[in-house]
């Protein structure tokens, strides 16, 4: 039985390490400015460009892939969380950004509620594994009791990062 626990922990530690590598002060913002869905996604992509995670030349291609995925089905899930994501060969490896908009905005969420926490993830088209793992892990963490409130209450970027 101990092995089950060890495995879980090991898996979790592995993911935790990845999350902290992905979410750094440069890729997390406290106050998103955009007022609509497309604007929010573009703002998050620009954060990745500024942080040097994706090249300026790849901006349009990344934006297109995320919007295409968004057209199939909204990534605004429930309880104010949205995870826009896409796959594109314009990125060499999985990149992610996190943004908060406290007043919330309409992201066509499944429950019709305004979305407040946005996590963008983009990974190479041919690669399986990290992409889904990241989506699963981030939504698992965000479904933990009190986690969303802690992110919304955070006063600094570092405070948010310390939660992961």
């Amino acid at each position, binding site marked *: *039985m101990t*092995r*089950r626990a060890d*495995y*879980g922990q090991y*898996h979790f530690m592995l993911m935790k390490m990845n999350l902290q590598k992905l979410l750094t002060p440069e890729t997390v913002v406290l106050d998103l400015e955009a007022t609509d869905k497309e604007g929010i996604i573009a703002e998050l992509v620009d954060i990745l460009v500024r942080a040097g995670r994706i090249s300026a030349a790849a901006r349009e291609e990344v934006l297109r892939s995320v919007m295409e*995925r968004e057209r*199939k*089905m909204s990534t605004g899930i429930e309880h104010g969380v949205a995870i826009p994501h896409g796959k594109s060969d314009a990125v060499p490896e999985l990149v992610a950004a996190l943004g908060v908009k406290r007043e919330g905005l309409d992201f066509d969420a499944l429950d019709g509620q305004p979305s407040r926490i946005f996590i963008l993830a983009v990974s190479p088209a041919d690669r*399986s*594994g990290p992409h*889904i*793992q990241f*989506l*699963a*892990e981030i*939504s*698992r963490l965000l*479904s933990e009791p009190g986690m969303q409130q802690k992110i919304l209450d955070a006063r600094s970027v570092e405070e948010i990062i310390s939660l992961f």
Partner: protein
Amino acid sequence: MTNSPGRWRVGFLTTAFLAATVCFFASAGTVQAAGEPAHTSRIMTELALQLALIMIGARLGGFVFNRFLRGPGVLGELIAGMIIGPYALGGIAIPGWGPVFPLSGGPLPVSTELYGIAMLASIILLFLSGLETDLATFMRYSLVGLAVGAGGIVFSFIGGAACAVYFGLADSFLHPAALFLGTIATATSVGLTARILSEKRRLGSPEGVTILAAAVLDDVLGIVVLAVVVGMVRAERSGGTPAWSQIAVLGVRAILFWVVFMAVGILLAGRLTRVLKRLHSMNTIAAICLGLALLLAGLSEMAGLAMIIGAYIMGLSLSRTDIAYELQDQLRGIYSFLIPVFFCVMGMLVDFHAVGKVLAFGFIFALVAVLAKVIGCGLPAWLMKFNLRGALRVGVGMVPRAEVCLIVAGIGLSTGAVGQDVFGVAVMLSMISTMVAPPVLLRVFENGSGVRGSERMKKEEVRSVVIELPSAEVAEFLFSRMAQAFRNEEFFVHRLHTDIPTYQIRKEDMAFTLIQEGSHITLNMPARYQHIARFIVLEELLSIQDLLDSVRRMKSPDSLGAELLSGVFDR
């Protein structure tokens, strides 16, 4: 008239085959007379002929039993062995060659080579049963399983040994015959029960899971008992009766071997499979794992235990890794060829003359062994959380004895610790218990719950998502797409051989099931890992959009059909 060339060909081939066989046997005698170098060739020829007869005979026996007598095929294989074995048809001399199954001079009536192949089969069998064990379930039901397994072991060991003493086959409980008959009586083969319950969809019931958990413990304890008994018999043969202190040492050594190798196995299995997976060939991985099982089998024999113990430990260690199902699949081929050989060879070991003398004893022994399991396993079950109906189900589920009982008896026979009579009794027990258990099991599982009103089995929280699709065809198509999506995410996906299409999906500690019933697809997942399963299925569903787009771009079926047919009448 049209098939006459075919008939000619068959007729010609048959004649040629018969002629070749006659020439072969006629020349065989001369070759053998030529001198020593022909010895190995003679042994190998004999082995090939024996295996040929066994392969065909065992399969036909199993088929006849299954098809016409509606009994377990295993019995047919055993009986086929008895019929073609050295004590029956196989003992009849063929002119120019001699008997196909000559009686060997040693404690075993068959050749060492043939027995070696049967042993190899038993190693694979135990490796597979270790692999198939659900360690997590076992742990969850370990308390009641422990009580049920231990109860069954104690009752049947004492019952079996007491029978031997009472009927004069042994003069004391420490006599090899008493020890072996006790051990033979303990060895439950849960495979038959598991198969019946899974067909009836009751394997996941509290009774089913308790039986499985108890069976693991029964195997472990039974194997420890076997190790101690083998050690005691060896000690006795090298001089005098073993002292209780020696027995204690043997017990401790057996348990130590078990604990140490089990701990090392479980600790290293995950790492080992991660390294092996880099080979990217399931064939190679399976071969290496089987090699390791054989290695451990050899080590356990060197440590004075039985070979099957090592194989079982290796299987159990790998059972919780994500390659367990793939390994089972890979090994199933060799298993399905060798296991009938095993049962057939076991049937061959039965000396009718010796069994005839203990026939009455055999019946009484089998009756005692069956009742000992029903009472020994049912009583703790009833005391802990089941009502009388549930306790009876658990007890009956633990009744079947097949391969382990025969392996134990075979070990006794090969070491000379027991004679043909005791071996015959073991075969009788395995036949009677496998014939009696299935119908009774079906009957006792007919009505309502077997769990006491207030008791509810604790289970890990499981979430289910049902996806409704427009038709069964669409569901079937998406079902296999989803399985592929899990494969792409490096999950090990295993299609279960059940009436309702089901995939079992595993990766490290995660385990999901995907079930298709008509136009519904159900995804079951533990709450802890629901996110990853949900995302994989969701993304796959969305990717169908791309597929639909490309279908729209496809030419109309009319024009595709026209292209397909155009030029069909061109000359």
